């Protein structure tokens, strides 16, 4: 007998898994999740997984606020450790007005944060060179999570709610009749379903069934590295350096995870064949910036690095919601390098929308139609994933 489902989720990354979990929580019926490779093996698993609420637009601030609460309570809710570490988040800048704008939004939505002077930053992090720092924004409740553990914990819990997950099983074709979803062909047989969520990340365009409505996504290879710093760095918060364009955060075992920040140098790539190692060029560039910011890192040891992918939309914000002009086809794509943290709250609100319920957060600002309507996002930081 042919396989059937009430909804098929394509993609075992944070967006697909979160939506599947919250659909399960709503008792939506039989949900099948298809993962082409293994869970969290795409962009999610390669993420630095910073969880912060430093955003300059209303919808992301609300999502991030909810995300911080979720990540703090996931250990209890999901019954598994998701590796959330509350180490704090700091953005340093020479443009103090950008901090003011974000803090205004934080005040509105009850997020604990403060504006720090360069002297206050120096007091917190004596090993930082602050000569070009004019101000900083600081949030004590933020930190980072383990993206792999987070996805596994969500899936584990969702399985208890009836979710069926398949790995090494991918959608070959989504079938629609006059824009209405009817089934998904996979490499292991078809599945009849009235609802499909495309959360395929860098592969989303490959399975998108409506060539007349192309997804405006571009891919960029993105690298991170791990270094062994002196002891003074063991409790470093996330430091996002908007002046030099780099960021770092402490990692387990006293290590430091670091990468380059805005403005991003983009590198188009093929999602099925790209170099997953980091390269020397990247390490050199990063080292120069890191040592300028933290002179005592000059003797730190470079341990390893890797490359993942960003799926970027025209305005660096994800596309979430029903695909216009279709029926039963939903999108959660284009994370643009900052959607690990907002993945769970996006999944929660999207699941409510799919189930015909009122979403806890109004995420209509992320709708696909915004590009046509010219209601796109700007950012006080300029284009990039700092948003």
């Amino acid at each position, binding site marked *: 007998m042919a396989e059937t489902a009430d909804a098929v989720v394509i993609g075992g990354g944070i967006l697909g898994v979160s939506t599947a979990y919250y659909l399960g929580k709503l008792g939506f019926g039989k949900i099948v999740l298809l993962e082409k490779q293994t869970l969290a093996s795409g962009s999610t698993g390669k993420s630095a997984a910073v969880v912060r609420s430093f955003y300059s637009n209303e919808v992301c601030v609300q999502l991030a606020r909810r995300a911080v609460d979720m990540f703090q309570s996931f250990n209890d809710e999901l019954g598994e450790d998701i590796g959330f570490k509350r180490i704090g988040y700091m953005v340093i800048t020479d443009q103090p007005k950008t901090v003011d704008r974000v803090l205004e939004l934080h005040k509105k939505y009850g997020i604990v944060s403060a504006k720090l002077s360069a002297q206050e930053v120096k007091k917190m992090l004596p090993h930082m060179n602050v000569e070009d720092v004019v101000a900083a924004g600081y949030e004590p409740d933020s930190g980072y999570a383990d993206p792999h553990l987070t996805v596994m914990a969500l899936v584990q819990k969702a399985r208890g709610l009836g979710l069926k997950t398949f790995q090494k099983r991918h959608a070959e074709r989504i079938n629609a009749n006059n824009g209405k979803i009817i089934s998904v062909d996979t490499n292991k047989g078809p599945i009849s379903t009235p609802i499909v969520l495309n959360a395929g990340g860098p592969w989303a365009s490959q399975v998108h069934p409506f060539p007349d409505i192309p997804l*405006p996504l*571009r891919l960029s290879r993105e690298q991170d590295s791990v270094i062994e710093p002196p002891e003074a760095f063991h409790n470093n918060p996330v430091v996002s350096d908007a002046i030099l364009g780099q960021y770092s955060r402490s990692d387990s075992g006293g290590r430091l995870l670091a990468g380059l920040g805005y403005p991003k*140098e983009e590198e*188009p790539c*093929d999602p099925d064949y790209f170099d997953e190692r980091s*390269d020397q*060029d990247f390490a050199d560039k990063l080292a120069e910036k890191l040592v300028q910011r933290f002179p005592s890192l000059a003797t730190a040891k470079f341990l390893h690095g890797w490359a993942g992918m960003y799926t970027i939309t025209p305005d660096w914000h994800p596309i979430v919601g029903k695909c216009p002009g279709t029926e039963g086809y939903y999108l959660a794509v284009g994370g643009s390098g900052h959607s690990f943290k907002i993945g769970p709250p996006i999944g929660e609100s999207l699941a409510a929308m799919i189930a015909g319920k009122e979403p806890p957060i109004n995420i209509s600002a992320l709708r696909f139609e915004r590009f046509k309507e010219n209601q796109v996002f700007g950012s006080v930081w300029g284009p990039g994933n700092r948003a």
Partner: protein
Amino acid sequence: MSFVIQCPNCGSRSAYEFRFGGEVRRRPSLQASDDEWADYVYNRANLNGLQQEWWYHRDGCGKWFMAERDTTCNEVKATYWIEEPAQ
């Protein structure tokens, strides 16, 4: 699928030797409105299909040139110096 770019100077080379300079956009005039400038700075078209782009041969001749790449399959259909029109 390999990702190869034909540098107008050095010939076909792996894309990893190059730096991507983004889609070709027309810079607004100095008199343009804030909205036009914001659009120029913030937004990209993200075409699906043939897109005109800037590329820089970082590990080669060190020259900037233009390329027409099919963004859906990374096939580079044409490359040329900035002065020349597309073939």
